C-alpha cells in the first residue's frame, strides 16, 4: 500500500491490490473478515477518557458481583444457588422448586421487555457496558494482552516478528494468563450450580469421581479461552441474536454513538481552509474494537463501547475545539434535530414492561413456601362394600423453606364424610417432601352421589393456607339402592 497521505498516483500506475486492505473499514464488508474468509486480527489502540473510566468502574462492580454471589450466605444457602441436581433454586433467601418453573416465563419475558425498552431508548448500552462478552474481553483479556505484549503498535510488531525466544515467552505468558482467567471464570460459573464447598470438594477429588463436572468446567474454560483469545468481536458481529435484533428495535430517536457530519465534514488536516472540525486523524478508527469507521454512520458492528468518543474528545481538547464531534446522540440529534425521548415506540415498550412487571410481581407474591398436591391412590377410583363408599387419596406435601415447618391438613367436606389419615400435623425438615394417604368414606346409606370438597393445608405458624378442590367419586346412588333392594337389605 502506498502511504495514505501521499498524492494519488495516476489510476493506470496504481497497482490493483490482490485484496483490498482489510483494515481500511468500509460499509460494504466486515473489517475483521478478510476477502479470503480468514479472520483479520484487530489491535485496537488504547483510548483514554471519561467513558473508559466509567466503563472500567462499572466492569469491576460487575466482576465483584459475579465473583462474590456464591460466597455470600443468605439463610444458610449462597445468595444465588441454582441447585439443578435437587431442583431447588435459591435467590437471596427466596427458594423456588421445580414446581415453580412457570415463574421462569415472567423472568424471560421480563428480560425481553426490559431489553426492548432499554434498546429503543438507549440503543446498545447493554453491549458496551454490561454484556459479559465486552466486560470480560475489554477489561480482563485485552488488559492482560496490553500488559504482556504492549500497546497496539508493539503487538502488531510482535505479530510480524519472526519466531524467537522472546516472542515465544511473551506468547506463552499471554496464553497462560488467558487459560488461568478462563479456568477461574468457569469454576465460579459451576459454583453457581453446586455451591463453593461442593466445588472445592470436586476440585480436590480425582476427575473421574465427578467426571461430568470436570468435563463441563474444562470444556467451558476451553470455549471461553477460544472466544476471548481468538474469536472476540466475531461473536458480536455474526453470532449474537440481540445484535441482529437491533435494527428492528431502534429508530432515528434512539441513543447511539454517532459522528456529527455537519460539524466534521469536509475533513481536512489542521489548518486546511474550509475544512470541518474532523482533522482526519483516524484515532476513532484505531481504537475501535470491531474495526469500523464510526464516520460511516450507524453500523451493525458498533457495540456502543464509546472508545471512539474518548479518542475524538481527547484530540478535540488538544486542538482546542469543542468535544462531542463523536458523541452519544440519536440520528435525529446528529442531523441537527431534536431527540424525542417520548414517542409511540418507547411508550408501547414501557407499557408492556410495566404490565409485565406488575403481573410478575403478583405472580411471585403468590408463591407459597410450601406446595401440596392431592391425587388418587393407585387402584380403583372408588371402592364400594356393604357399609361404605370409599375414596383413597395421596397428599404430597413439600416444604420449600430452609427451616423445618409443621403443617395441618384440613378436609372441608360434609359432616357425614369420615376421614382417616393426616389427623396429626405433619412436620417436614427443610426442603423435605412427604406423601401421606388420606382416606375418605361415606356410609352407604348416606351416600348421595359424587361431590366436591376442599383439602386445606395450613402451616402451624399461621402464615399461609393452601387449598385444592377434589372430587369424591362413587357410583350413581340409584344403582346402590337397586342392589340393596335386590339383596333385600333395608336402608
Amino acid at each position, binding site marked *: 500500500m502506498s502511504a495514505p497521505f501521499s498524492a494519488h498516483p495516476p489510476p493506470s500506475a496504481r497497482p490493483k491490490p490482490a485484496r*483490498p486492505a482489510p483494515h481500511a473499514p*468500509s*460499509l*460494504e*464488508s466486515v473489517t475483521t*473478515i478478510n*476477502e*479470503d*474468509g*480468514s*479472520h483479520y486480527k484487530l489491535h485496537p489502540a488504547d483510548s483514554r477518557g471519561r467513558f473508559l473510566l466509567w466503563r472500567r468502574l462499572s466492569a469491576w462492580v460487575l466482576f465483584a458481583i459475579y465473583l462474590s454471589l456464591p460466597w455470600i450466605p443468605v439463610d444458610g444457602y449462597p445468595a444465588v444457588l441454582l441447585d439443578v441436581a435437587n431442583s431447588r433454586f435459591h435467590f437471596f433467601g427466596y427458594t423456588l422448586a421445580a414446581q415453580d418453573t412457570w415463574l421462569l416465563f415472567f423472568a424471560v419475558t421480563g428480560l425481553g421487555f426490559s431489553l426492548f425498552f432499554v434498546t429503543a431508548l438507549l440503543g446498545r448500552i447493554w453491549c458496551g457496558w454490561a454484556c459479559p462478552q465486552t466486560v470480560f474481553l475489554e477489561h480482563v483479556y485485552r488488559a492482560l494482552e496490553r500488559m504482556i505484549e504492549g500497546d497496539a503498535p508493539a503487538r502488531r510488531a510482535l505479530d510480524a516478528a519472526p519466531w524467537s525466544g522472546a516472542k515465544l515467552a511473551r506468547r506463552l505468558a499471554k496464553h497462560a494468563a488467558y487459560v488461568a482467567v478462563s479456568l477461574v471464570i468457569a469454576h465460579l460459573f459451576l459454583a453457581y450450580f453446586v455451591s463453593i464447598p461442593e466445588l472445592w470438594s470436586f476440585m480436590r477429588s480425582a476427575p473421574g469421581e465427578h467426571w461430568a463436572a470436570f468435563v463441563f468446567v474444562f470444556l467451558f474454560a476451553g470455549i471461553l479461552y477460544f472466544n476471548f483469545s481468538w*474469536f472476540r468481536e*466475531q461473536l458480536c458481529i*455474526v453470532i449474537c441474536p440481540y445484535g441482529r435484533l437491533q435494527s428492528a428495535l431502534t429508530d*432515528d430517536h434512539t441513543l447511539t454513538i*454517532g*459522528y456529527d*457530519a455537519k460539524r*466534521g*465534514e469536509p*475533513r481536512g488536516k489542521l489548518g486546511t481552509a474550509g475544512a470541518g472540525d474532523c482533522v482526519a486523524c483516524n484515532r476513532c478508527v484505531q481504537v475501535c474494537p470491531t474495526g469500523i469507521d464510526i*464516520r*460511516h*454512520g*450507524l453500523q451493525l458492528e458498533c457495540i456502543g463501547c464509546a472508545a471512539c468518543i474518548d479518542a475524538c474528545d481527547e484530540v478535540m481538547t488538544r486542538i482546542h475545539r469543542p468535544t462531542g464531534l463523536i458523541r452519544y446522540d440519536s*440520528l*435525529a440529534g*446528529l*442531523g441537527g434535530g431534536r431527540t424525542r425521548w417520548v414517542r409511540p415506540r418507547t411508550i408501547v415498550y414501557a407499557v408492556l414492561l410495566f404490565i409485565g412487571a406488575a403481573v410478575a410481581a403478583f405472580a411471585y407474591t403468590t408463591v407459597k413456601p410450601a406446595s401440596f398436591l392431592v391425587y388418587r*391412590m*393407585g*387402584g*380403583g377410583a372408588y*371402592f364400594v*362394600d*356393604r*357399609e*361404605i363408599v*370409599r375414596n*383413597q387419596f395421596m397428599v404430597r406435601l413439600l416444604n420449600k423453606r430452609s427451616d423445618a415447618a409443621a403443617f395441618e391438613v384440613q378436609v372441608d367436606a360434609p359432616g357425614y364424610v*369420615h376421614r*382417616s*389419615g*393426616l389427623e396429626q400435623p405433619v412436620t417436614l425438615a427443610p426442603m423435605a417432601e*412427604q*406423601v*401421606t*394417604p*388420606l*382416606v375418605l*368414606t361415606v356410609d352407604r346409606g348416606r351416600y348421595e352421589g359424587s361431590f366436591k370438597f376442599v383439602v386445606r393445608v395450613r402451616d402451624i405458624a399461621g402464615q399461609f393456607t393452601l387449598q385444592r378442590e377434589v372430587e369424591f367419586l362413587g357410583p350413581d346412588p340409584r344403582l346402590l339402592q337397586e342392589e340393596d333392594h335386590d339383596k333385600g337389605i333395608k336402608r
Partner: protein
Amino acid sequence: MSQTPNQPPSHEDDRLRPHTYDGIQEYDKRLPNWWLYTLYGTIVFSIVYWFAHQTAAVIPADGAQVDHAMAEISAQKMSTSIDVTNDKLFWEMSRNPVFVESGRQTYNSLCVACHLPSMRGKGENPAAVGPDLIDTAWLHGGTPKEIYVTVDKGVPAKGMAPWGPVIGAKKTAEVVAYILSHHQEGEPITVQTNPGH
C-alpha cells in the same frame, strides 16, 4: 438512516448478486472461514455418527441403550433388596429393633390411615377401612412372604394400594417386619379366603 457521509467507493471487482429485494442488493462475499469450518465439522460429524450409530453399531442402538440402563437400575435395586421368599429372614428382621423401628415409621406415615395406629383396623373400629393386622386371621395369606406380596403388589380390587413401587423393596420389607414383630413364629394362622365383603 439520516446520515451517510463519506461513502467509500464501491469495489468494481465485487460480484453483485442479480436479485433486488425492497431495493436492496447484496454482494456475494465469502463466508468467514471459521463459519465454513464449523459447517464442514458438522458434516464430518454427521457422517462419523451415522456410521458409528446406524451402520457399524459401535454406539449401541437406542433400544439397546435403554435396555442396558434399565438392567443397571434393576441390578442396583436387587443388590439392595432382601430375599423376600425367605420366611426365616423376615422373622429375624422382625426381632431386629432397627428394622422394626424404621418399619414403624413407614407404617405410621402410610398405613395408619386404613389400619389405624393400633394396627387393629376393623378389629378395633368396624368403620375402619383395613383389616386387623394383630389377630391371627388373614385374608390374603399369613406367612411372611405372603404378607410381603400383599404389601408389595396390593389388592387393587379391595383398595389396598401396591406399595412396592412407591416405597421400594427395603421399606416394604421393614413394614412387614414391623407387622411380624406383633406376631410369633409358628402361631396358628387362619386364612379367610372369602371374608364376606
